């Protein structure tokens, strides 16, 4: 521990010395009498001993969901005791504390005490929590000893998920079994069509009613249940952040939600973080893939870059053929727009979920920024129109809306318009 003295001690020492010298010089007791209490305080301050304090900090959980509470427990012990022990737990600004972050307690000799802090996880991410700064002081605060304790431990706060009742069905399915009804004909549950019997057809597939009507053997055809490949394409080139809200936060929440639900359906899900820092996960299925995706999303951040970047830089296995590409983007960067149009040109089933930044940058009515805001919105409309021209549905996810709204909008679009 490092020891410090209060600014009062030199002042009191100087006043005491000046009083004594003045008393000797003047030959009077009046300068000495005011000096006496200051010298007494000086002696009382120096009499204090350095307390030996032991501080340990721990968290009750290291993985939580956004909005949950974590309890940080700080265990204190001192053999000599401490008149006043001040504690400060270093907490990232994404976490908030019930009450003050700094606490002051008294430790009697050989006393063990526990201080609990309720941390509310307001934002997803990976944070280091557990380091404690402490300061032991004497009662009057003449002397203090400062130190640090505790190891920084990672606290993973997973993004809060949205509620979704339905998902976007891909146009094409893969060859493995899953929950998605394929357009192809084969072994399955869903009835697709009737056709004439061919050698090799099983007897159980014969439709006896149709056979009786037409005089020859007819069999049922079914749509098989297959899995699909879904690639979540997260745009991390740019974001809009205002008052603690950002487009990237919502994009990550949407990606985590979609990944979990698609993986529950036995689909293979991959991830592409397309921005200043490129990251990807090859499509796979299962709980392990869900953890891999969420861990990757937790470290997602917007890194500003001026490098020209296209989809060519991605490994081919990241974007398998017939995959549904769900782009979650605020449509702020032209490089993402170009990359998505390139994907569409390569024949991918592309859907753009626009995380709307418009609500975050609304200018004050009557201000000169209104015109610029209108021009910016028009340029966004033009970009959406470009996507729609090549058959890519663009749905806007506005602040305060559930994610289900744009998803349902895509499904409605697909019922009405079949992309080429």
């Amino acid at each position: 521990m490092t020891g410090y003295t209060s600014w009062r001690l030199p002042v009191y020492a100087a006043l005491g010395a000046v009083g004594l010298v003045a008393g000797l010089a003047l030959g009077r007791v009046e300068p000495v009498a005011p000096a006496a209490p200051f010298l007494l305080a000086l002696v009382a301050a120096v009499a204090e001993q350095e307390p030996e304090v032991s501080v340990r900090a721990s968290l009750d959980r290291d993985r939580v969901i956004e909005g949950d509470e974590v309890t940080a427990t700080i265990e204190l012990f001192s053999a000599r005791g401490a008149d006043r022990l001040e504690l400060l737990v270093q907490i990232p600004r994404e976490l908030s504390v019930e009450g003050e972050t700094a606490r002051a307690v008294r430790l009697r000799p050989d006393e063990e005490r526990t201080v609990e802090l309720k941390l509310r996880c307001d934002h997803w991410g990976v944070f280091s929590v557990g380091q404690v700064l402490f300061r032991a002081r004497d009662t009057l605060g003449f002397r203090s000893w400062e130190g640090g304790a505790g190891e920084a431990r990672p606290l993973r706060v997973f993004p809060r998920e949205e509620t979704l009742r339905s998902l976007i069905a891909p146009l094409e399915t893969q060859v493995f079994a899953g929950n998605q009804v394929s357009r192809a004909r084969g072994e399955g549950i869903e009835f697709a069509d009737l056709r004439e019997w061919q050698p090799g057809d099983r007897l159980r597939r014969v439709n006896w009613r149709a056979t009786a009507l037409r005089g020859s053997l007819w069999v049922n055809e079914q749509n098989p249940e297959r899995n699909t490949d879904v690639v979540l394409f997260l745009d991390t080139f740019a974001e809009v952040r205002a008052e603690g809200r950002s487009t990237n936060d919502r994009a990550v929440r949407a990606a985590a939600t979609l990944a979990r639900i698609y993986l529950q359906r036995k689909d293979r899900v991959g991830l592409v973080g397309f921005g200043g820092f490129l990251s990807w996960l090859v499509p796979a299925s299962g709980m392990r893939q869900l953890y891999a995706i969420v861990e990757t999303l937790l470290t997602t951040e917007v890194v500003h870059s001026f490098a020209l970047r296209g989809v060519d830089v991605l490994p081919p296995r990241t974007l398998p053929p017939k995959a549904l590409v769900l782009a979650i983007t605020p449509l702020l960067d032209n490089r993402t727009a170009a990359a998505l149009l390139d994907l569409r040109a390569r024949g991918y089933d592309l859907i753009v979920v626009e995380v709307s930044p418009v609500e975050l940058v609304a200018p004050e009515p009557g201000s000169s920024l209104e015109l610029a805001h209108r021009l910016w919105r028009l340029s966004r409309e033009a970009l959406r129109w470009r996507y729609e021209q090549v058959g890519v549905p663009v749905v806007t996810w506005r602040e305060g809306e559930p994610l289900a709204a744009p998803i349902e909008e895509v499904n409605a679009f697909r019922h009405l318009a079949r992309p080429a």
Partner: protein
Amino acid sequence: MLADALVRAPSPVVAFVPGLALGALLLVVALVFGGRGLGAALFLAGATYVAAVAAAGGGADASAPLVAVLLLLCGELTAWSLDERLEIQAEPALTRRRAGAITTLGLSGLGVAALVVALSAAGPNHGLGWTVLGAAAAVAAAGTGIWVAHR
């Protein structure tokens, strides 16, 4: 301090006013800027008191211990006020303990200052008892100094 100076030396009071005003200003500065200037403010107040007593003349001033304690309390309460500005959630017992410690320090200071004033009233050559007491006090002061230096 100003009232004390007015009572003791009405004629040269004008000479004390600038010093006291500066002392008061420094005290405000100390409260606003985290204790800076508090030493100068206390020094000015003490110097004004000593100057007023010296100007008035006469024997030892009986109110000197009270002045001493008020000066000490001025410093301690300023420091407490500055400490309370920190956003620290403290146990209520800590506040009571600090109030008790300041009271104890103040009363002890009052006793020591009164003892100093009382002992100064004893004239020279008052016998062996006083000489022994003075020697014991000198040894105690030196011992305290050595003890403090060793810690």
